[in-house]
């Protein structure tokens, strides 16, 4: 009987040791590679504008045509009007472009442009690049959208 308790105690000790090792491995494991920058507002590549990019109806739906709003401000915070915007992008992981050709279809005032015809057909990291040309000059910005 006594020997059984000894075995049990040893078993418990081993289990505790294993749990401890697992905890150390788990706690010290490097965090998974940092994900893509998913901020919805940022300075354009050359710092000419501050761009923000939001789904017009607030939610991102997979597989449906949808419109987003691209808001352009100067660094001082003034709205950028009369900008010419072209949209490109794709999924770098899958080596393909966008399944649709989104366009800037309307200017809604206060620096807000409607980008219509976006469609995210699969989950993963989508990259959207905007080439912007306005009175202040030309610049570009890339947004990542993760589904």
């Amino acid at each position, binding site marked *: *009987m006594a020997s*059984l308790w000894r075995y049990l105690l040893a078993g418990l000790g081993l289990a505790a040791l294993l749990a401890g090792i697992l905890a150390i491995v788990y706690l010290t494991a490097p965090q998974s590679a940092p994900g893509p920058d998913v901020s919805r507002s940022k300075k354009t590549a050359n710092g000419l504008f501050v761009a923000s990019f939001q789904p017009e109806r607030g939610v991102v739906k*997979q*597989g449906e*045509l949808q419109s987003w709003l691209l808001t352009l401000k100067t660094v001082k915070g003034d709205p950028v009007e009369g900008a010419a915007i072209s949209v490109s992008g794709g999924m770098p992981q*899958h*080596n*393909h*472009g*966008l*399944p*649709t*050709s*989104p*366009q800037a279809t309307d200017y809604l005032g206060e620096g807000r442009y409607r980008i*219509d*015809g976006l*469609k995210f*057909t*699969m*989950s*993963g990291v989508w990259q959207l690049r905007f080439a912007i040309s306005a009175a202040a000059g030309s610049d570009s910005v890339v947004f990542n959208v993760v589904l």
Partner: protein
Amino acid sequence: MNRLLRLLALAAVLAVAGCGKPDFSDAEKKTIASLALNALPALKPDTTNRFADVPAAAALGSTLFFDQGMSHDGNVSCSTCHKIDRQFQDDLPQAVGVGRTNRRSMPLAGVARNPWFFWDGRRDSLWAQALTPLENPLEQAGNRATFAHYIQKRFGERYERIFGPLPDLSAVPANASPLGNEAEQAAWKAMTAAQMDDVNRVFSNIGKAIAAFERSIEPTQTRFDRFAIDLASGAKPKADDAFSPEEMLGLKLFIGKANCVTCHNGPRFTDNSFHNTGVPPVRDLPLDRGRFDAVAQVQADPFNCFGAFRDGDAGACGELRFMVKSAPELMRAYKTPSLRGAATRPPYMHAGQFSSLEEVVAHYAEAEAAVEGTSEIHPLQLSDRERAALVAFLKTLSD
């Protein structure tokens, strides 16, 4: 002592048994739920076809769908290739109408939910799609003037109750179409613009009636869907609904390592998009560049969403408006087919290239380069056991 040992043994057995249970992460469970049929939203109205949900139009469309009189030789109907008892497809590598075509017939479950039609998306609405085989010399091989006369003679009263008065067709030639043979094209050119419009109107309404019928063809619940519902609710699956360990592994691979779900996503297992996956061409068939050539065809179609025969406003034309018109990845890109029911309808791919699911899985694992354009898929290490598991899982979409 004995009792204690027995208790320990029991605990060990339970622990091992636990490993065999469906062990899906929260992310996997979310993906599985997104594939289940109960995630399929209600069918949206088709504003480009104001007869889409008119029962009399669907009834006439059903008659026309099965009517062999709707062909040049009187032997071919839509149902010749879209067989009602075969998931509305024909089990052939390439469809055979009046002649042999270069593409595999597609099944019709859920077809009204497609943004694009045919393997290459050369039509942008279900009703515009339905018109195309009617005039294809290898399919129904008719011409639109004949169809207008035929509708007047056979179904005039039914037609008028749905679509309003038929135009005066007395001066319209018996055979005429802008797409027909030389004589038919000449006859078409000799018609007045008003006559052309009259014939096109009747012709487009034929498509709208057939589309109204086809909207009723929807996917049905499978063993996978029942499994997914039970997994989401935590209910114990009923006897036949439980997945075997092999099916479970197949599902895990499908949504994980094998990357199938990247394109075969949502409750219809399709992203409704076009991809070059390196599927080889069939020898002896004409050059086939898939989506690359379909872009110009859908733009040139007078029955497309921008055309005069669309009902409702152009707000419904987003897919055509924002279509990718030129990009290298359109070369030999074909539509992602739904996988529901796929296991019981070989052969596979746009020209029936593969005769079994095993061959399909092998193609995606080996990922050979495309003959033209660039394949989007990459080679994958899959053991024989894993390949068999994927096939076993796909079969649960047919049970």
